[in-house]
């Protein structure tokens, strides 16, 4: 019983690491451009298949991960520049933009199916050694992903707090007009934010594909549930909140999955999301200003 619990918490931290990669990227995008980008899920699916292509070509999945990350980062900038930014400029309503991102994600998802087919795919065994920490046994892949996530989150933290660029990003996120009048090139800052968040999205897609047994074209769409739950729990638009939210969602889901049917993993994430939306839509760490932005 206790052993199951400890093991589930360990798995939860590993799952939380993947969720954190995705949720932080999702949150950064929203924070900087005020757009809820549902295409994010389809871009994760794209990342998983790009990774598969590289793994099939003989590369290690760990080499594929950063390559795919950067490729998806660039794709994400182009997507924002080419499709979303023009709509925002002409004053399209926010829910029409969400529908555009849903439509774009369906187009992308079905382009992927048309090319690779609907069959489930896998990267092959990535297990390697098993680590035993306390009572928890984790695979090399899980430990690597946890370390990678910690490193990336630390890097993002340093970027946001210690550099002028990061300060410009935070300024743009909290008040775009004011930042612009202070001489910040907000368009370039937002390109950079979409590059960073897209890279995280790509990394999350490959990391997810490494950890799951097999995946198909719905990978990213289904992963939207824990990812959005984590982002909303932490206060959407808040990268640190998303990190904590991801850990909570990951652990809660794995513990619930260990003591009941595994299908309830996503149900737990979903319940967290709905409860937060009903009680405190600004999230645990959301500031009052972000609450104003979320309410109609």
């Amino acid at each position, binding site marked *: 019983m206790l052993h199951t619990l400890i093991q589930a918490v360990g798995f939860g931290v590993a799952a939380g690491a993947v969720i954190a990669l995705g949720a932080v990227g999702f949150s950064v995008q929203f924070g900087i451009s005020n757009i809820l980008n549902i295409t994010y899920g389809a871009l994760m699916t794209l990342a998983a298949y790009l990774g598969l292509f590289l793994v099939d070509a003989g590369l290690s999945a760990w080499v594929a991960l950063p390559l795919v990350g950067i490729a998806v980062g660039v794709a994400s900038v182009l997507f924002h520049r080419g499709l979303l930014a023009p709509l925002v400029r002409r004053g399209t309503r*926010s829910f029409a933009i969400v*529908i555009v991102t849903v439509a774009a994600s369906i187009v992308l998802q*079905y382009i992927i199916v048309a090319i690779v087919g609907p069959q489930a795919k896998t990267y092959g065994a990535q297990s390697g050694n098993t680590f035993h920490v306390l009572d928890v046994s984790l695979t090399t892949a899980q430990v690597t992903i946890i370390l990678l996530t910690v490193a990336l989150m630390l890097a993002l933290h340093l970027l946001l707090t210690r550099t002028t660029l990061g300060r410009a990003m935070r300024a743009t996120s909290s008040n775009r007009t004011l930042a612009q009048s202070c001489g910040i090139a907000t368009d370039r800052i937002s390109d950079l934010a979409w590059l960073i968040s897209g890279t995280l999205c790509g990394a999350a897609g490959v990391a997810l594909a490494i950890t799951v047994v097999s995946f198909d074209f719905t990978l990213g769409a289904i992963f939207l549930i824990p990812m959005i739950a984590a982002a909303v729990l932490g206060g959407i638009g808040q990268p640190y909140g998303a990190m904590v939210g991801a850990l909570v969602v990951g652990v809660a889901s794995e513990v619930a999955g260990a003591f009941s049917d595994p299908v309830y993993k996503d149900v737990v994430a979903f319940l967290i999301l709905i409860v937060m939306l009903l009680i405190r839509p600004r999230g645990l760490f959301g500031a009052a200003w972000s609450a104003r932005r979320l309410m109609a």
Partner: protein
Amino acid sequence: MGAWEFYAVVLLVYLGTNLLSVWGLNLQFGVSGVANLAYIVMVAAGAYTYGVLTLGPDTGNGGFQHYVIGLSLPFPLAVVAAATVGAVVGVLVGLTGLKRLRQDYQAMAMLVVSIMAATVVSADTGLLNGNEGLSLIPNPFADLDPELGRWAYVGVVVVACAAGWIVLRRLTTGPMGRTLRAMRDDEYAAAAIGKDIVVLRLMVQAVGGAFAGLSGALLAAFIGGWSPSAWAYTETLALLTAVIVGGMGSDRGASVGTLVVTILILQGVQFLPQIPSHPGLTEDLGWIVLGSLVILFIFLRPQGLLPERRPSYAETADPGMAEVDAGRRDG
């Protein structure tokens, strides 16, 4: 019955059921500004309700499928129940919007509701037979001659559409239509003149949900089966495409959009050559076309093919104001 006659019946039933659900979605999305991306869940609620109420206990037929209830109710009762359940589910889903979240935030929450509902129903085999779905759902005219039965069913769908149109027009025209459009265009202004936004939104969710439930029930009874693959979250986008292509907020526009989407896209791709190595390719292309249509229309013609008409008011007595009014109409 010739193949073409059969095809015509299928097309007419699909067109009728799609019209009902697109009207309901247009009432919510186009007229009232409720971005319900979980709309297909209400269609599914109606279809499943009809299924479990008209099927017998699940021990029948060797017990090959598992589901709850199983009352063998007659067709009319089950259809009414399906519309009611659709309305109730609509209200429950609409409660997430009660906190007056931003519209895009609501849309995201509803999208997640839709993905989640399909995941849970697929996984739980005891409830609605999981991923396999329900089959052998009774058709009301099963005892008739097959040809007569099919056309009788078309008749039922036509009657349902006529009734639906009358109910719809009562809501989207006249004072209620203006109230709902006011809520969509400026929620605070509508609230300031005494309109209860929360009640109006829930009412729209209920009525739209009833349309969805009715549509789902009629479809499930015609096909004879219903499974999670019939109500993936992408299906809401297909209905939304009809609304956006036709013209958001316009009932006639939504009907034209349904015609375009049902006939040109969903049936049109059937005529593309099949490629044996890619069996599902035409269906995939259909989705790619639908998604692209939504993006193109929001970009190039956001008002749709048949735009919503701006309401016209009687001339103002004050000539100065009349000029302003005229200017506003022309602009």
